[in-house]
């Protein structure tokens, strides 16, 4: 996509992640106001608001765009609401970007926020035997960590990753998170602490698995022409948004599925689903893994961060552990991964998560990430995946 087709980030904002126990709307509004403040714009300047939906907070969560717009004060702005599980934020961003690129608006606000119950995510209530997300709990007791653990065990068997490697990911991310004022967990941890934490889904322990959190994130997107006209400090460019779905046959067992697609008739595609998510973003941006200054990847578990590092092309299959052990993916390393502290430090606030990644991309690329600043960051990728086959990858550049 050429410069003429670009959309710029004018501001990013977050409500700190935590277990605050308040309605999601407040987190979203706080994040929106922070993003607008950073952009130097008013809510009344916003022509289009997109809300990333939450499914655990009743009707207001299903119509997040309207909910946030009302809370900020009705202005008549156009809105959209969308849900794509953990990829909701990327889709919301893409909807906003597309409307700007189409010339239908100049300023769009994208907001996601969640308020989560304690413990495992559970399916939406009621007896719903037609819903695979309900059935996987009913028939198998297969929680989200169970799927993360299947990937982790598979990784150990294929590549020889160890529990010590997984613990090292947590140690690295906790250290980065300790430097992030928006993170929920801000304490450095030791490998011994991780390895002594209770086993949840073998081989993953409590400290290998991300928590479920409350939080909110927001981004203000503008057209280059509008940024110029208003004199905004908008140097970060959205170079790609990938919202791809899997290609048939998908040979990796996806949440919340009971089985993979069959390869009986059609051979597996060239890339796995996760790899295809990043690939589409690289193609759109005209960049490759070697161009990145850092990456934010979806570390639902410590082991999954290692998978992602390979899926986004920063290491060959089985090579992420080597990068980790060499310190390459740590802050100050050759290619920092999750300088925000990642989900390990934030926990998961589903509709806000992809937007939180974009906030980190924005602040790092603006050079305002403080103690966790990646030196001379020029280009970065954020990758994520929502259950039911939702890809999410964003590349931003300066």
């Amino acid at each position, binding site marked *: 996509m050429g410069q003429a087709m670009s959309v710029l980030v004018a501001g990013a904002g977050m409500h700190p992640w935590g277990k605050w126990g308040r309605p999601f709307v407040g987190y979203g509004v706080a994040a929106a106001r922070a993003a607008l403040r950073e952009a130097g714009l008013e809510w009344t300047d916003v022509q289009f608001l997109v809300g990333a939906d939450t499914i655990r907070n009743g009707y207001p969560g299903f119509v997040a765009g309207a909910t946030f717009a009302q809370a900020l004060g009705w202005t008549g702005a156009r809105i959209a609401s969308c849900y794509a599980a953990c990829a909701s934020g990327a889709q919301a961003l893409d909807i906003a970007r597309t409307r700007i690129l189409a010339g239908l608006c100049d300023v769009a606000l994208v907001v996601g926020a969640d308020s989560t119950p304690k413990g495992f995510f559970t399916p939406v209530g009621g007896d719903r035997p037609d819903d695979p997300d309900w059935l996987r*709990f009913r028939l198998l007791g*297969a*929680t989200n960590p*169970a799927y993360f653990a299947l990937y982790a*065990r598979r990784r150990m068997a294929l590549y020889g990753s160890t529990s010590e490697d997984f613990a090292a990911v947590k140690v690295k991310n906790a250290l980065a998170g300790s430097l992030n004022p928006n993170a929920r967990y801000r304490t450095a941890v030791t490998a011994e602490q991780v390895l002594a934490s209770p086993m949840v889904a073998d081989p993953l322990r409590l400290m290998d698995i991300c928590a479920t959190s409350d939080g909110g994130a927001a981004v203000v997107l503008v057209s280059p022409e509008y940024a110029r006209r208003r004199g905004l400090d908008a140097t970060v460019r959205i170079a790609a948004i990938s919202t791809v779905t899997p290609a048939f046959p998908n040979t990796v067992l996806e949440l919340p599925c009971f089985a993979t697609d069959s390869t*009986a*008739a059609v051979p597996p595609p060239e890339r796995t689903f996760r790899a295809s998510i990043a690939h589409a973003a690289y193609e759109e941006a005209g960049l490759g893994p070697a161009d990145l200054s850092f990456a934010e990847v979806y570390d639902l578990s410590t082991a999954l961060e290692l998978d992602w590092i390979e899926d986004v092309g920063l290491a060959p299959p089985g090579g992420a552990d080597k990068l980790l052990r060499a310190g390459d993916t740590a802050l100050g390393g050759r290619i920092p991964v999750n300088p925000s502290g990642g989900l390990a430090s934030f926990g998961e606030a589903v509709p806000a998560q992809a937007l939180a990644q974009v906030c980190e991309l924005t602040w790092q690329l603006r050079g305002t990430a403080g103690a966790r600043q990646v030196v001379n960051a020029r280009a970065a990728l954020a990758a994520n995946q929502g259950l039911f086959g939702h890809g999410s990858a964003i590349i931003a550049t300066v």
Partner: protein
Amino acid sequence: MLPSKRLCHIGPMPLPAIDGWFAVDDGVAHLLGTRCADCRTVHFPPQTGLCRNPRCQGEDLAETRLSRRGTVWSYTNACYPPPAPFAAAEPYTPVTLAAVELAEEGIVVLGQVKDMTVDDLRVGMELELTSGALADGPEVWMWGRP
């Protein structure tokens, strides 16, 4: 697990926890999938209507019994009782799960593992389909020792 197993012998067969996904005939369990008559793609859970192969126009998906043996793609357990709608046994013992690859169908199928813990499992080992009761009675497919 054991009490309901005994009940099987003195009472009626336990109800399946889900209809049409597996069958138990004379104590032999089979997963029930569907196979596209046009492209031969296999679907599990059984798919009706359209074949999921995007380059196939097939709508004739006939029930097929999947291979009973496969190799472990990966495995894990649930050290804490999974939340509802799962009915956790009391006292709770960890549920073991395995994703098993069926070579002929080219498919990996997730299931509970019967009478084995994660210490008994390794990636690549062979397991065979069986069935067993959930803590509140209904029966599901499970992977077990061949």
